[in-house]
Each structure stands twice: as C-alpha cells, then as structure tokens.
C-alpha cells in the first residue's frame, strides 16, 4: 500500500530520477545481483550432487543425512553467521586473522548463505529425481552404470526442480539483509533499509530503490513461468511411491562419508553456538527470553494456518488453471522478494489507524506481515500437491451439488492431508525464522524470538545471545520432529 501511495503521490517518481540516476545505486545493485548469483551457484554445486545421492542411491542413513543437512535452512541466516563468527572470527575456536578476513567480506557472505540455502536445492533435486518414471531409469541401468544413469538421465530430467531451487535461493539471497550487515558487506537491500532506518526518513526514496528490484522480481516470475512452468509442480508434492535405491556398490562407503561430511558441516555453526553458550548461558538465557518464544510460536502457527488456507484456495486455482490464479501467484512471488523493510513500512501505514488498533497493537499485525511475505510458500507447495491429483473427484462431487468448501473439506483435505501438513510445516518454520519482516513493525512487548536475539546482540552477554539462538534452533527442531512424525504416521495410514 505504501508503494502504491508513494507512486500515486509522485513521491517515487520524483525520487526516481535522483536516486536511480546515481552510479553507486546501480553499482550496488550489480554487487547484490553478483552476490546472489554466486550464492546460487554455490548452493547448486553443493545441492545437486548431494540431492542426487541422497534422493536416489543407497547411501548409508540417507534420510537422516538429509534431515541434518536441511535443518539450518529453517533457522535465521543471521544465527548461522553468528555461529561461523564464533568459529572463524579472529578469536573464534579455530579462527585466525586470515579466516576472519575471509569471513568478514563477500566470501563469508557467499559461503554462509550458500551453505544455509543449499538444502533447498538438495531437497528439490532429490524430489525431482524421485518423480522420474522408473522405467526410464531401469532402461538406462540395463546399458550403463548407476553414476552415468544419474548424470545422463536423472539429473537432466529433474532440471525443472533444480531450476526452481535455484530461483528460490536467488530470491532469498537478494532480499537478505542480516547476514551481509553482520559480515560488513554492503548490499542493495541494505540501501533500502538505510532509507527507512536512517536519520532521513525517506520512504519515497526507498520506494524508488525498490523499483529495480521489482523489475528483477518480474524477471524471476517470467523465468519461473516460461522456463520452469508447471513442471516444477511435479517436484513439490509428497510421494507415496517407493522405488528401490540405486546401488552404489564399492562407491557406497566413500559417497556416504562425503554426504555425511556435507551434512555435518551444516551443523558446525550450531556447535559453535553451543560451545559459546555453555550450561550457564542456557540457564541465564531463561531470564532474558521473556514472552518472545510464545510470541514466535503463536504468530508463526497462526500465520502458517493462514498461509496454508491461502495455498488451499490459490494453489488449487493455480493447479486447475483458473484465470486469476497466475496473477495472484505472481503478486505473492513479488511480495516474497520485495525488501522486507519496505513491506514493513507499508504495514505501519496501512494498519496504524484508529479503527485498526486491534490489529496494529496485537499479534495480528505479525501474522499479517508474515502471511504477506511467505504466502508464496503455501501457494506453490499446495499448488504442486493439487497438480498431482486428478480433478475428476472434485468434478464428480460438484456434479452432486457439493460447494467449494465441502469439496475442500470432504475430498481434497483428506486426500492430501500429508501435503497440507507439509505445507503448514514449511510455512511455520519460515515464519519462525523471520527477522527482516517483523523487526519494522512488531508491537512493543511482543517481539518474536529472532528480534529479541538481534536486539540483545548489542552488548548483550554473548553466552546468553548464543543460548537464545540455540533455544530457537531447539524449538524449530522439536516442531520439525513432531511434524515429521505426523507425516510418517499419515504415510503409513495411506
């Protein structure tokens, strides 16, 4: 809304000529784009082979390895940067002047975010490979060895899923603020942030800066529509079909060691935080945690419900090719990549009014902000789920007079309960990890845990800050574990 208001008032157009006419603006944008490309490439280098091995071969403990590898993606990237700092900062556990100089610079940002986001590529690669018609694979295996089957048949066929993973990583990196700011790398979203957090409150200038990002967003939407398209949907649904894994033979042990090494590297920052926190930190942190954990849980849980509900409606419409669905999907994708500070200012402008104080001063404002930011997750996840199911069941029900909600409640939800639960789980953990969106407009006294960690980091006892970070990670792990068990239970029943 603030974007529209600024555009209509001419504020953004007035600022556009000045702000976008400066060379440093474009230089920063190119730097951010370059960082995003580098992180994406890094995530692909890590994620594609890891996903191929974990998704399709008989590597030892592959499910556990995938869980360990994927866990950090559900944490605020800033916490991971904090952990790497405790490891490789000059006074870190294994740090030196050299490691510190590497960490606090573009290399550090690229490495931190590539490791943080690689599981997205890993998971989508694994899912994409698992969707391939097994007869193609069987035919290939009669004439060539397993590794050539993977390289020549499976990976090329899984490219829409891999491309989707690359798209998501690129978008997440482009809008990331916390890690570059902590590691002292100037980025384009930080420029937007300073226009709104700097001494000169300049929303018009911030909106002008957002316009190129919107152009990038539209380009991503185009890439998504034209090159990836509906094929990506095939990767996101939950499988109930089991295929025998590819035997690795003599390569099983070394490849198992390799993927477990990759997975365990993902946990190193958490180990560093645990060492920093110690037992005293974990107990002292309870004095500082306040209501933030409850706030995070409540806001994230409700936001995930709303995102799932959005996904049920818009995702279903997208899968059934309803006219307006593509537009809503594109808007949700744009909201995902718009700098969160701009979204935040819009929330303040829209909801801080006499008649909406019951929204602005309560958890509801957090829920609305999180839904606006992460709605795309529900739409895409459930769009994929519905895409895999035949529309005939719904058509038959409609023929007998069942309305939309009755079809949804009596047919689609029971049929796709696992997919719905998975979508809720994904939305929940992304809402839990959010910092950049809610930090701009959270109500006083209702700060979510990531915000509390971020504000306490200023001169707060380091062992307490590390411990709070661990509490966040533990909470996420508990929710994922419970969710995973429920998903497993549903699979056994179906």
């Amino acid at each position, binding site marked *: 809304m603030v974007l529209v208001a600024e555009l209509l008032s001419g504020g953004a157009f007035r600022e556009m000529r000045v702000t976008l006419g400066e060379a*440093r603006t474009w230089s*920063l944008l190119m730097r951010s784009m370059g960082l995003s490309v580098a992180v994406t490439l890094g995530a692909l280098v890590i994620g594609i082979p890891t996903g191929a091995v974990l998704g399709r071969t008989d590597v030892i403990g592959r499910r556990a390895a995938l869980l360990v590898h994927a866990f950090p993606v559900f944490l605020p990237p800033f916490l991971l940067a904090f952990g790497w700092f405790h490891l490789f*900062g*000059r*006074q870190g556990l294994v740090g030196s*002047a050299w490691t*510190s100089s590497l960490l606090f610079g573009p290399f550090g940002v690229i490495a931190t975010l590539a490791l943080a986001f690689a599981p997205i590529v890993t998971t989508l690669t694994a899912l994409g490979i698992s969707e391939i018609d097994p007869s193609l694979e069987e035919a290939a295996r009669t004439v060539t060895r397993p590794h050539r089957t993977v390289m020549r048949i499976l990976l090329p066929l899984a490219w829409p899923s891999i491309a989707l993973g690359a798209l998501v990583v690129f978008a997440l990196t482009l809008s990331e603020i916390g890690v570059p*700011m902590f590691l*002292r790398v*100037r980025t384009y979203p*930080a*420029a937007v*942030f*300073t226009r*709104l*957090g*700097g*001494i*000169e*409150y300049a929303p018009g200038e911030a909106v002008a800066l957002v316009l190129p990002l919107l152009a990038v967003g539209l380009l991503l939407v185009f890439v998504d529509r034209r090159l990836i398209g509906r094929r990506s949907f095939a990767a996101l649904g939950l499988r109930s079909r089991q295929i025998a894994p590819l035997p690795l033979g003599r390569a099983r042990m070394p490849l198992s060691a390799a993927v477990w090494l990759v997975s365990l590297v993902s946990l190193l920052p958490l180990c560093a935080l645990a060492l920093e926190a110690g037992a005293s930190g974990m107990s002292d942190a309870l004095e500082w945690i306040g209501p933030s954990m409850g706030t995070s849980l*409540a806001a994230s849980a*409700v936001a995930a*419900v*709303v995102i799932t*509900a959005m996904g049920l409606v818009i995702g279903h419409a997208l899968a059934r090719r309803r006219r307006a669905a593509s537009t809503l999907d594109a808007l949700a994708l744009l909201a995902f990549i718009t700098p969160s500070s701009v979204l935040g*200012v819009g929330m*303040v402008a829209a909801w*801080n009014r*006499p008649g909406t*104080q*019951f929204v*602005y*001063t*309560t*958890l*509801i404002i957090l*829920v609305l902000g999180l839904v606006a930011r992460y709605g795309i997750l529900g739409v895409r996840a459930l769009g994929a789920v519905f895409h895999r199911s035949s529309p005939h069941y719904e058509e038959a029900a*409609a*023929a007998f007079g*069942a*309305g*939309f*909600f*009755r079809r949804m409640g009596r047919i689609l939800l029971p049929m796709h309960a696992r997919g719905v639960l998975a979508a809720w789980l994904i939305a929940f953990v992304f809402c839990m990890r959010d910092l950049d969106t809610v*930090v*701009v*407009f*959270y*109500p*006083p*006294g209702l*700060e979510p845990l990531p915000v509390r960690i*971020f*504000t*306490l*980091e*200023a*001169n*707060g*006892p380091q062992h307490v800050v590390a411990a709070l970070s661990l509490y966040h990670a533990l909470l996420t792990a508990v929710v994922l574990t419970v969710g995973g068990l429920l998903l497993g239970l549903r699979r056994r029943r179906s």
Partner: protein
Amino acid sequence: MRDRPDRHECPPAIVLVFLVLAFATGCDSCKSKRNQAVVYTSVDQVFSEPIFHHCEGAAGISVRSLFDTEETKSTGVLNRLIAEAEHPQADVFWSGDPVRPFLLVDRGLVEPYRSPNAATLPRELRAQDGTWTGFAARARVLLVNNNLISEADTPRSIRDLADPRWRGRTAIANPLFGTTTMHVAALFSAWGDEEAKAFLNRLKENNIRIASSNGEVKRLVVSGEIAFGLTDTDDAHKALDDGAPVRVVYPDQSGMGSLVIPTVVVLIKGGAHPEAGRRLIDCLLTAEVESRMAKDAAHMPLRPGVSVPENVRAVGSIKAMEVDYGSIAQTMERIQPWLREWVGL
C-alpha cells in the same frame, strides 16, 4: 456450475483465531490500561530492560517496551515514531543520544513535561520549554588494543584515526546510525563543512573500517583485527569488564574535548497513556536509575551526588566538547546525503 458456499458451512476458523488472538494479547482498544506505559528506546536492551522492570515496581506501572537494533541504532526507533506520528503508539521515547529527540520536537511530536525529578539535573541538560531532559551520559572514546599499540604510541585525538601509521587498522561505526552520526555532525558543527569533509575523506584514504555498530568496533579491537577504534564508553567498559586486552582513551583532552552524550527522555504527544508515561519519566529521572546506569552500563551520572563506580569516570573529570544539541540536530539532517555517499549507500 458456479461454486456457492454451502449455507450450512461454519465460518472459517481463522476468523475465530484472529478474534481470540486480539483478546488474548490485550489490545488497547478493547480495554483500558491506564497504568501501562509504552516506551520506545535506543538505549541498549541489555541495560534499559532491567531499568524498566525496576520502574514497574517503583512507579506502580506496567511497561511495554520496544528496542532498537544495533545496526539501525537510534534511527530505526526514531523513524518508527515518525511513521506512527498520525496515531502514536509510544508514550515515552528514551533516546541514547540528545540529538534525535530534537527531530521529534521539530516535527511537533513531543509533549512538554517538566518532571519534578529533573530539578536537580544541571540546567543545560533540560529544555527550557520542558520538551526534553538529559541524564546518564556516555562519552565517545578511543578503544585501544594493548597488544598492538604501546603506551608511547597511544592515540590521543580522533584525528589519529587518519594517521597513515594506522592505515587499515582503525574503525568507526556506520556514521548513518547511532552516536557516530551525532559525533560526525558535531565535527561538522565544530570544524565547518570543509574541514570535516576533508577529515572523513582522509579516513577513507587511510582505509578505515566502517563497522556496522559501536559494538562491532569493540569486537574488532578486542579481537585484534584493528589497533583502535572510535566507540562509546558503555561498549568500551563492556570490553574491560570482559577482561579484554584494551584501554580507553578520552580523545582530545588537550584540545576540543571529548564528546559527551547524555541519554534523553521525552513524552510523546498523543500517546495513549500520558499519565503512565509521566510516571515512567519521573522514575527514569531518579538518582536510583542514574546509579544503576552507572553501575551496569558505565553511563556517567549527571546529577550531583550520585556515586560513580570505580570503572566509570566522573563527568566533571572529562574535558567535554562544547556543543549545541539543537544545532547538531539540524546539521545531522543536512549532511545525510553527503554521508550516504561517503558510506556508499
């Protein structure tokens, strides 16, 4: 066939959840909270939050607080106050520096209030019209790494940040945020634009590191990544308390003096709980709070008679830079475009 909602279907559960949330979290429009004060602050949460807990007991109020992040220190909260100007949510703003509240005063967002507890504070720390009151101060200092700089080579002036001897081994916090903004504005006021810009450009030529915050400057010095940096006394004393191999230098004691930065409290015009806001301000302006800020946050008491811990210098023992906070506030706004260009944002 057009889809119509089944008339026997229940309303979406999500609507009920929203209503429960609204009541559960206690919105102001639902019930009156006359004894609740909402405070926005840029004083570090680790220091200010215990103070608010103290004031809840001492003043008989409940306090809901909102803190700034290290990276947007002072300005993030300030801009939220400006963004909310039409319908203020805060009752009180406790600023970590004396300059940003002027921006609120200039915009007509402050309600004058002369707290009875302010009477014992020095006159120059109180606005004549009652719009702001200063107390519990920090100073801008140089934090020096003992292992990298000998006593003989100790820097004594902020100009030493541009000394080629220390090329690439000095740091300041981002001058777009926090107390560094105020300090840079004070230099512009004291030296004039030309000299101040020349100094900042020399800092750049000297490869000064621009840290995200004063806390980051402290970390850089403590870790030995840089030899010395410009930061605040609370950050510096935190490093000393942690046993880091550092020492604190109050710069320019034989020259223009060190910049002293009181914290400042203002009452927000149009806040929902003005009475509770005044009681919170009264509590913040007590000797007890200044004593706590001195002990826990190494802030110098400005009220006579408040004891100073051993690790905190009395403000009277420091040659302070002569400044006009109102003038600095105007300079701060004026130089923003140039500073953004200097920082590269």
